[in-house]
């Protein structure tokens, strides 16, 4: 009698258990498939015979493997230059943003600073308003930052959200560390350089990865500020290719006009150019993201505690 009751309960629980487990797995597997398949689809198409790919015959695996698409896109005008611009803004922009976030995150914890709270509020308040695109454009024009590479960099140097992340992290470091250095006579900058910088590296990694992704993905500033094709970024060029790929294929296809089956499989089509460029633009994110996922997650954890 005493034994039978818990047993019954256990049966019921395990049935319920099984349903919840199945529902969780099924829904998440479907969701993961929907997220994964488009990337996979574009990747296998960029490596398949172009005539099959254009007819929509390549759905689940590579058909007629060849690498000519990746050789040919070098001929797409402007692509290599756009890659250089995107890399340059990612590297330079990220470096300056991270250095600034680290320094200001530390400085805003210095209680000795004159009117510290006021300056901190002045910076953080900018998260909550926005003058609008036209006033921003006119500002950038007045500062000579339209059609200028530095227009990609300067407005992003002081990033309030990253500063808040760094400040929160600095505050979690034991105060004794700073106090000890101060007693030894270290100045404000020296404490930052020799004590803080090595300690706050985990949060700097997080900020760096967020900032790099933002710079790499940025599209709107090119759209608003840049008319000079030499300054177009990879994102912008990709957008142009999607809308004009038909006219591009003539430029890329070499002189031969033979229509043998072998030639058809590797001749560029609007679809093949679009897909190949898409793979090129998405690759850095796909390869970098899984390794740095924990930094992203750490970033929102700290942000969530703060918010």
């Amino acid at each position, binding site marked *: 009698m005493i034994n039978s009751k818990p047993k019954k309960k256990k049966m019921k*629980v395990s049935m319920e258990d099984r349903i919840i487990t199945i529902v969780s797995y099924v829904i*998440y597997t479907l*969701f993961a498939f929907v997220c994964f398949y488009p990337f996979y689809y574009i990747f296998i198409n960029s490596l398949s015979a172009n005539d099959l790919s254009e007819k*929509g015959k390549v759905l689940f695996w590579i058909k007629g493997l060849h690498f000519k698409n990746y050789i040919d896109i070098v001929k797409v005008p402007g692509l290599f230059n756009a890659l250089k611009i995107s890399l340059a803004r990612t590297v330079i922009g990220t470096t300056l943003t991270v250095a600034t976030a680290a320094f200001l995150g530390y*400085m805003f914890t210095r209680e000795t600073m004159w009117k510290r709270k006021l300056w901190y509020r002045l910076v953080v308040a900018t998260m909550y308003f926005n003058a609008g695109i036209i006033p921003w454009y006119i500002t950038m024009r007045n500062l000579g930052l339209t059609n200028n590479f530095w227009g990609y960099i300067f407005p992003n140097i002081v990033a309030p959200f990253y500063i808040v992340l760094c400040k929160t992290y600095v505050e979690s470091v034991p105060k004794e560390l700073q106090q000890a250095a101060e007693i030894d006579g270290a100045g404000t900058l020296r404490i930052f350089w020799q004590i803080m910088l090595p300690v706050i590296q985990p949060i700097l990694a997080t900020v760096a990865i967020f900032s790099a992704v933002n710079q*790499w993905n940025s599209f*709107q500033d090119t759209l608003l500020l840049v008319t000079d094709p030499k300054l177009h970024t990879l994102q912008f060029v990709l957008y142009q290719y999607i809308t004009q790929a038909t006219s591009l294929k003539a430029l890329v296809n070499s002189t031969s006009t033979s229509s043998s089956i072998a030639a058809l499989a590797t001749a560029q089509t609007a679809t093949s150019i679009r897909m190949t460029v898409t793979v090129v633009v998405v690759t850095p994110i796909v390869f970098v993201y899984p390794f740095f996922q924990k930094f992203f997650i750490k970033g929102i954890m700290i942000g969530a505690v703060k918010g």
Partner: protein
Amino acid sequence: MKVKDRKKARSYMEFLYIVPFLILVLLFSYYPLYGWVYAFFDYKPPFPLSADRFVGFKWFKSIVDSPTKISQILKVLRNTFAMSGLSLLFSWVPMALAILLNEIKQKTYRRIVQTVTTLPNFISWVLVYSIAFNVLSSTGAVNSILMNLGLIDTPIMFLQSSKHVWFRMWLWLTWKNAGWAAIMYIAALSGIDEEMNEAARIDGASRIQIIWHITLPSLMPTYFVLVMLNLANFLSNGMEQYYVFQNSFNKEYIQVLDLYVYNIAMGNGGYSLSVAISILKSIVSLVLLCVTNALSKLVRGEGFI
């Protein structure tokens, strides 16, 4: 006395260190606000403001001074409300996903699906559009599969269509963001004391009961904050998603306020009108932010600003 002086000198010195950065903030975040005066002038782009005529509230009135303009702005507002409304209506989706993810106990599998479903959050809208274009074009994966299965005879033109635009935009937004948004709740879940779950289990609570009485309540504070932020940003959908997806077929339904401000500025050089609209939008947004923040203070005892 000397010590006091040195302290003071240091406090000003520390301020001087951050001055260059404060200048950047003033230049790029505060100085643009001055541009709002353009809404009160007849601004013609190449000329300086001094050469333009002061027109007072002309541009503000012109937003609603003819039936066609009224119907235009109403359409834009309708689209904005529809897109933001859908997001608000389905704002529980990421939380539900987080609860499901939390029930997946197999570690490796969990890590794989988590990585795969959060990846779309980190690609740009241009890439999302490129993916949409490739997958949904007339010879793309979706049409090919549907035709192979014999479900349709002619390809469906998903992107060149004016049907269900709001819902499809919401789907893409969800595809991009939901997986990542779920992680935010997972962060909140990791704070739950494992002992509490254990105690509930010993007391004979079923898995559903644990989800309902422990997991869900512990997610509610995060959910509440996110809903409040959603409300505060009700008028700000951003323009990038709608800009890349817009075409002549869906323009009627896709033009949200942020995109409209851009489109009229680029259209007939209506800089002044565009600025006038963004001023109105900013004022309403500020009110929304204050209201939701006050609401948050009332409910949780603390605001989110």
